[in-house]
């Protein structure tokens, strides 16, 4: 095993006499294989996973820093071609996660077209109840009457086959401001009901998830209810450029545990532009691009858990490694991530996290697919500014061909009529019709060669 580069070169010299470039490449190949470690790619091996880092809740729960987001379970098709959760794979993922110390599972009645709670429940039912904490939400968006909200709450117990819920959230507060919040949770009396449920022990921790403005945030935070936790969107890209730092500091001040959602911005912080990937990898070639985002999220002490919707086992393993145990960021690394966030602003991606809350579009458009294709092209440098762009021809081909591949023609942006029905559903508050029309105009210019 102690063969060095020199030996390789010697052999290369020898082979060279036999002739040509084939020999040269063969000797290089020989070199690298001699250096290989005992097991394959460390990125997909679980041997590097150590002890999970845990944080304590107000009720004394020891919660794993990695929480499982149940919004992106693997899907498959049933015999009628309908999308259904691939239960077998979900079970495998849950087993693996629990085996490696993950104990927080976050779902909601509306996820995966209403299938998430049930699938999560089935997978967790196979484990002792004291091995995991379950979090679900009151998603009373369309009908916020007391009766309907209560029914939704009770249904969650049935779906997940549990008799208590560890973490219960008022789902997505902030859209529509204070009036909307009061209408959904206060005026109908549901908040009083939930507080009583907490007293009765059926809810162990009561909190809320938040997408909105500062005013509503402070209003809810300081109302006359004791909050056990709050879930916010926090990551290095949002830290300074959005309100994330402000939200976190307010919660820290009040000593309220913070659950992090979108630590990876729906995967966008794992799929950076080539330039940024190079930047991160250059600094730590052993770490995945995504792990930087998770280290950032777990860096702050008041963070209880950081949620990740892991569809693939490779993602799960990578995240487990990041948090087992967490390697805290140095001050210099924090600064480095802040610089990275500033650089990201130069790549004007649309902040879509593929949560699919906007779907289905009544006119058949695949909104997230269009936005994600656009973002992909932005990151890959395939959104030329004009025809003088030296890469124009290539980029045009990549954008247009890739567009037809990612989105069927009938579901493309050109069919957006601007009815605005999607807008109220977007937690990232993207002006979807405006973005779709902008992308459509860009596509037209590419097609007509008039950019």
């Amino acid at each position, binding site marked *: 095993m102690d063969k060095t580069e020199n030996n390789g070169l010697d052999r290369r010299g020898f082979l060279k006499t036999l002739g040509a470039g084939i020999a040269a490449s063969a000797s290089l190949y020989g070199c690298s294989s001699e250096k290989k470690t005992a097991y394959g790619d460390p990125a997909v091996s679980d041997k590097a996973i150590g002890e999970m880092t845990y944080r304590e809740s107000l009720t004394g729960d020891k919660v794993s820093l990695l929480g499982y987001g149940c919004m992106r379970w693997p899907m498959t098709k049933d015999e009628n071609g309908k999308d259904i959760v691939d239960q077998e794979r979900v079970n495998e993922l849950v087993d693996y996660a629990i085996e490696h110390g993950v104990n927080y599972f976050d779902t909601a009645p509306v996820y995966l077209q209403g299938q998430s709670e049930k699938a999560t429940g089935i997978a967790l039912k196979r484990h002792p109840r004291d091995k995991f904490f379950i979090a679900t939400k009151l998603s009373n968006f369309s009908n916020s009457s007391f009766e309907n909200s209560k029914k939704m709450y009770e249904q969650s117990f049935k779906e997940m086959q549990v008799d208590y819920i560890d973490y219960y959230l008022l789902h997505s507060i902030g859209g529509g401001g204070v009036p909307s919040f009061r209408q959904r949770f206060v005026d109908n009396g549901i908040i009083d009901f939930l507080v009583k449920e907490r007293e009765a022990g059926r809810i162990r921790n009561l909190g809320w998830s938040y997408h909105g403005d500062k005013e509503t945030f402070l209003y809810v935070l300081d109302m006359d209810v004791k909050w056990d936790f709050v879930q916010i969107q926090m990551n290095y890209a949002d830290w300074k450029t959005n309100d994330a730092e402000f939200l976190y500091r307010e919660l820290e001040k009040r000593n309220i545990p913070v659950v992090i959602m979108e630590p990876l911005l729906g995967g966008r912080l794992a799929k950076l532009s080539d330039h940024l990937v190079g930047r991160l990898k250059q600094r730590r070639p052993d770490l995945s691009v995504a792990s930087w985002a998770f280290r950032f999220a777990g860096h702050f002490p008041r963070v209880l858990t950081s949620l990740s919707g892991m569809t693939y086992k490779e993602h799960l393993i990578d995240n487990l490694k990041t948090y087992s145990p967490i390697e805290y960021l140095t001050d210099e690394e924090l600064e480095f991530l802040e610089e990275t966030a500033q650089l990201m602003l130069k790549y004007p991606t649309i902040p879509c996290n593929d949560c*699919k809350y906007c*779907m289905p579009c009544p006119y058949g458009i695949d909104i997230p697919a269009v936005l994600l294709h656009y973002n992909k092209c932005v990151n890959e440098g395939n959104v030329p500014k004009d025809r003088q762009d030296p890469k124009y021809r290539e980029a045009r081909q990549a954008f247009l061909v890739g567009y037809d591949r990612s989105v069927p023609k009938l579901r493309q942006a050109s069919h957006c009529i601007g009815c605005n029905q999607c807008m109220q559903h977007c937690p990232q508050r993207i002006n979807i019709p405006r973005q779709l029309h902008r992308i459509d105009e860009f596509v037209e210019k590419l097609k007509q060669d008039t950019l």
Partner: protein
Amino acid sequence: MNSKIRKVLAAVFFTLVTLLFLDFTGTLHAWFGWMAKIQFLPALLALNVGVVALLVVLTLVMGRIYCSVICPLGVFQDIAGWLGKKAKKHRYTYSKPLTWLRYAMLGLFVIALVAGVGSLVALLAPYSAWGRIVSNLFSPLYLWGNNLLAHFAEQAESYTFYSADVWIKGGATLLVAIFTFVILGVLAWRNGRTYCNTICPVGTVLGFLARFSWLKPVIDTSKCNSCGLCARNCKAACIDSKTHSIDYSRCVVCLDCIDTCKKGAIRYVHRAKSADSAQAPKVDEGRRAFMTATAIATATGLVKAQEKKLDGGLATIEDKQIPERTTPILPPGALSARNFHQHCTACQLCVQVCPNQVLRPSTGLMNLMQPEASYERGYCRPECTKCSEVCPAGAIRPIDRAEKSSIQVGHAVWIEQNCVVNTDGVSCGNCERHCPTGAIQMVPKDASNPRSLKIPVIDTERCIGCGACENLCPSRPFSAIYVEGHEVHRTL
């Protein structure tokens, strides 16, 4: 000139003309589009005097070499005949000319042409018959092959290949193509060039000229032992070995007889010259076999078409249906319905290259198989002038992008009760947003309330009939805005 050169030239022409119908990207047309434009009938209809004169001179010098090299339908029959000869050697016999039938068919053709019965003209035109066979029977295989490559390219993150839709553009045309293919294939397999020497109007015209051609295959009676081998291998059935005569109106100058004759008694010379002994070159059967094998391999290399999976969170989209148009829409460059129908031989070349799935063969009896436009699958995009570039017959005249943007082929009509502004109570304006000429504007539905939802109004003077509005209208299955064709196109 010998049969070997003839075969190589025929293979080149045949392959490239066929590829013109298969290449949906339009790259090949830039280089070999002229091969469609030198086809006799399209050139004649396009009043392409130069080409017609050239072909006449060619025939007067060399005989019906056109039928053996340039005409793809002729070469197709040679391939079928060659396969037939494999099954049974020396299978042809001399037959008496059916001159009455030939001139009757030519007469019928001319009458149809003058009377404007486009469907009959199209049915008899040889090059177009091949175009229909390729576009209807072979093109799907080609596209499926392409889509397989596109599938692999997608896996490899490459953008070189992109997939194309395979769809039946016209049922009647497909049937005609199948019948033509089967009937001509069987006829050629059994008897060689029967079609060319009885039905084909181009064959009759060129045959008349070929009787006076400078070069001809001539039998040297001093060497001929009347074995009859030449006659039994003549696919045109035009050699009467008993009288040592050749019917030059039917001879397609394949020169196979020269190779067959063991005595070297036949030579391709000017008739006045006497024959001297020269060795006939051996036929390169291997090359020919290779060419055919390649053609067959392409045809059989079919693969399953892939379907795009849809997420369950997507609303279903109903297919659009063709609205009842009073006047059919013809592509810009067609000038008028009259000009278009007089020139078009329904070869399907424009249908094949249309990247937006707008053109398809019509089903009307008078103009069966001649293309027309419709906008359920796409619209006539402003940057595209493909059909006008490829048309060999002058049915669609060449236009550039600037001209296209000002040619009015029809005008849009709004159907109030279909519009989603009325049916769904939502704001829309997708027609206005995509109109390339700004012919549509949105005005408040309620004139007294400027904040009411807006409906489209059309300035028909600015509308060019491209169909962007019709295609992108959210109303399904019938759009709330559709295009009516114009009989005479106008330049705005």
